[in-house]
């Protein structure tokens, strides 16, 4: 099957700082990939490159058969097909939950309002908060907001979903509700790239886990291999660090 995202020889600099070094990655449709690594390793930057929130300087990114270049039309075409969920939700605070969800379908997909509302309500039910549709983001808890953010992305019916540490800003009580939503989504066959520290989620859902360090992909393996038999020293250290107090969660 053809790759939906293929990255080859990706290099990125912030000024003179070399953030991503020669990244090669191919993602097949319906594949779930979890990207892990210490902070500053370039995980977020990598997935932000995929929908051009960050510009890359060298290499090639092809999403759904369209190459990311400086061409604005191509960028917008890719962004239409790639949904993204942020660490801090980034809902639009001046719009209600429903308006947040119908905005992009109406303006980007040019969908009639009624259809957009129907679709938004469908996805809000999927994330189990249809009763909040008329409220504003500020009135919701963090977990609810993140689920709205997921629904908002889904309303565009993207082919790929990017998650940039979706649970890092949440209270422990709320992490589960978001993860459950993501697991449901994964079970339905959505292509997902997830940057997260939730190793339990990785074990349960991921097809492949990628370990990044210092801007490079150090190790790629299925979760069982990844957690049980890490090959590189750096990954062993990393797992030892993060699993110290998380063993119970897994």
């Amino acid at each position, binding site marked *: 099957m053809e790759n939906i995202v293929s990255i080859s020889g990706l290099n990125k600099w912030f000024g003179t700082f070399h953030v991503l070094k020669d990244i090669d990655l191919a993602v097949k449709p319906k594949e779930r990939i979890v990207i892990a690594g210490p902070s500053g390793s370039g995980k977020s930057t990598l997935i932000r490159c995929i929908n051009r929130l960050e510009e890359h300087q060298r290499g090639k990114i092809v999403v759904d058969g369209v190459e990311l270049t400086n061409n604005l039309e191509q960028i917008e075409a890719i962004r239409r097909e790639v949904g993204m969920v942020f660490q801090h939700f980034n*809902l639009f605070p001046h719009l209600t939950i429903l308006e947040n969800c119908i905005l992009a379908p109406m303006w*980007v997909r040019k969908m009639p309002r009624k259809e957009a509302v129907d679709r938004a309500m469908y996805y809000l039910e999927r994330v189990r908060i249809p009763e909040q549709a008329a409220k504003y983001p500020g009135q919701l808890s963090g977990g609810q907001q993140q689920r709205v953010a997921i629904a908002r992305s889904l309303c565009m019916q993207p082919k790929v979903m990017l998650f940039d540490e979706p649970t890092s800003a949440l209270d422990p009580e709320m992490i589960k509700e978001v993860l459950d939503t993501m697991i449901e989504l994964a079970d339905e066959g959505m292509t997902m790239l997830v940057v997260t520290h939730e190793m339990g989620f990785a074990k349960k859902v991921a097809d492949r886990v990628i370990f990044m360090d210092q801007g490079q992909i150090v190790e790629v393996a299925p979760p069982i291999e990844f957690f049980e038999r890490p090959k590189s020293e750096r990954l062993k250290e990393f797992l030892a660090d993060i699993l110290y107090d998380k063993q119970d969660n897994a």
Partner: protein
Amino acid sequence: MSNETFFRRLDEYLPDQAPPPGNTGPVKWLRENLFSGPVNSIATVLIVAIFGTVIWGFFNWFFLTSTFHGETQQACRMATQATLLEERMGSLRSEQRRLDRISGVEGSAFDDRRFKAFVNNLGNLASKDIPKSYADLLKNADWVALNRAEIAKYEAAQAGRLEAIEAWIEAGGVGEAPGRTRDPKLKKAYDGNTVHPDAEKFFIDGPDQLDWQGAGATIASALQARDLAKAQEGIEALRPFVDWGKANNGACHTVLKKNYWQLLVNAYDRDQLWRPILVALLLIPVLAFVMVPRLREGSVGMVLGISTGLFPFVAFFVLSGMALKLSHFEPIQGAYPNIPIEELTQHQMDDALAEVGLRLSRQNGQWVEGQSLEFVDQWSVRLSTGEVTDVLPAGFGRTMYGLTASFNSVTSSESGRLLIAATALVFLVVLGLLIAQTRFGRVARPFLRFLQFVAGFAIVIAIWGTVINNPHFEHKRGLLDLTADPLEELAPEELEAKYGAHTQLGRLPKGVQLTALMTRDPNAIGVTQADQDAAWADIVDNPVYDMNRDGVVNAQDDVNGDDRINATDLAESRGDHAPGNIVFLTHVPVENTWGGILITMILGLIGSAFALRAGILLALGRQSTLPVVRYLSTGFIEGMRGGPLITILIMSVFVLPLILPIQFQPQPLVATLVAVCLFGTAYMAEVIRGGLQAIPKGQYEAAQSLGLSYWQETNLIIVPQATRTVIPAIVNTLIGLFKDTTLVIVIGLLDVLTVMRNKIVTKVEWNQTLMEGLIYVAIFFFIFMFGLSRYSMWLEERFGILKQR
């Protein structure tokens, strides 16, 4: 510590209990807010005391002791002087005591200056200004709208009452005293025009035969003789008057009552008053749209939205009737098609160019611009041949000349005008449909709305020019002219009943005379044709008829340039064919003609509306990644903010005309408006930029990741949030801009403050009321500004949800 307290198991939750007394309601509020500690308590008491004193003083002066019902300046002045009488007397007495104490001699000579002032006061008091009775007061007052006959009847009734009372007293005062007249019509007329009840009591019921002159003379001679006791006796003789005056020595609330119309629009020609009235009516849908959210939806919302967008332009055009003027030579040729230009008289040239605001004078047989001497050479215009087109510069000017010429040929015919109106209406409707309904409209709405804002101007010109000022629809103007004198509709016998059998024009009441002069059918209002002709002949020989009603008969009143000011001039000056009026609606020059609150509102509202929209664009421009846009925006903002508004106003009105080519001379009001708009824009841009900076990066990223384009992102996500964050600052800027419009006095526009200061309180009869006038202007501004800030608080509350990010 026992084990029981260390280990504890909760078996039952406690129920909620009521808070202790004094912890709720007003007691709590007082305790927490006003008396929370010793310092706060002292501060509270102090503030209440200071505030109370000041407020009470003002309240007393403004409301309680004011000559509230003193309909004339005379009543006010009398009250003031009566108080002075007592006060001066008191101070003279204490001065006398002081001198006596120092010298040890009783009745020593005192300060001459004070003495003179006192005697002067008495002189004023006894002067002919002071009416001797209420009836006298009525007779002297120019405000008396009562029919003289009705006053006479009323006075007769009053006299009858006095007689009846006297008879009643003589008869031993048995039974009920004869009451006041109960004629409701008279009572109403009387109540509407009464002076203060005390004054009425004094003037009518009191000693009508009070000896003013005598008392004045007594006091004066007593003072000459240094006999304070005798002077006091003289004052006691005037006691009822003095008491009345002391009780009514406050603000003269007569200014606004008598001058509200002038305050509103200054001195609009009476025939033009339909303009502000129409604008006020048009404001209703605008306010509905702004205030009622429900009305912003659906087709109603569309219509109201369009009216709101168009309103500033409609209002501006209706009020000033600014004509489309693209070429100076067009009006010359249009006004005098058969006279070669070099043979025109100066009158004719002025007349033709009056609309354009340009003045050409003849030098060495050529017409040159004469307004600014230094620039004569630069802008001298050669008109050596009779062919107007020869002097038009090639390019844009010539093209525009051709356009206006062909436009004129269309608009000169009835069907042509109707065609334009119909086209404009259709265009308007289609534009509205596009904007509101279609997908294209949805995408492009923000830009179309701005375009619509601008396009409205042209559309309005066409519609107004076509319908309102078309001779074909002349009768409709009567409908709008709410202040029109309905004399022409009255039958002769009705007229006679109302005004008496006046057949001589000169004896008609002032308001009637104008109508009589203007009417096409003088016989219908009981004036013979001969009378009318005679009246006109009188005016022509002795040109007192003042076309502009500005009190000055000047060359401009001689509209058609035959050196006589007559009916033709009047007809032409207000008619649809006034020279230079290419687009129909007669131009009303704003300088010295109209203004007041109207000008303040126009400048303030249009300036605010423009500044808000353009400020957003400019703020975005300043943040742009394109260097050219960024530097231009920054340069504009810094340049505009760099100078005070007053210099920018002066530049725009006096300097800009020197720089601009001759085809684009702005009218003063337009130049002012543009200056205010741009000035406000620069400030607003910085405020909005502050809002833009407060928006987290995540909002941009979220919008981008959803695939929104730059403009969608800006319009839907960024600008709404940016403006809502800085609502207080926006309102702050708008309030400042609104009040800054009072500076237009420097370029000769009369805003509300200037009308009050230069027009109303400088009149002889109102010249002591500057304080009241200023207070009224202050109240006007306060009401508006306070309303605006309440509105902004309401907005903040409504968008307060934003804060819970």
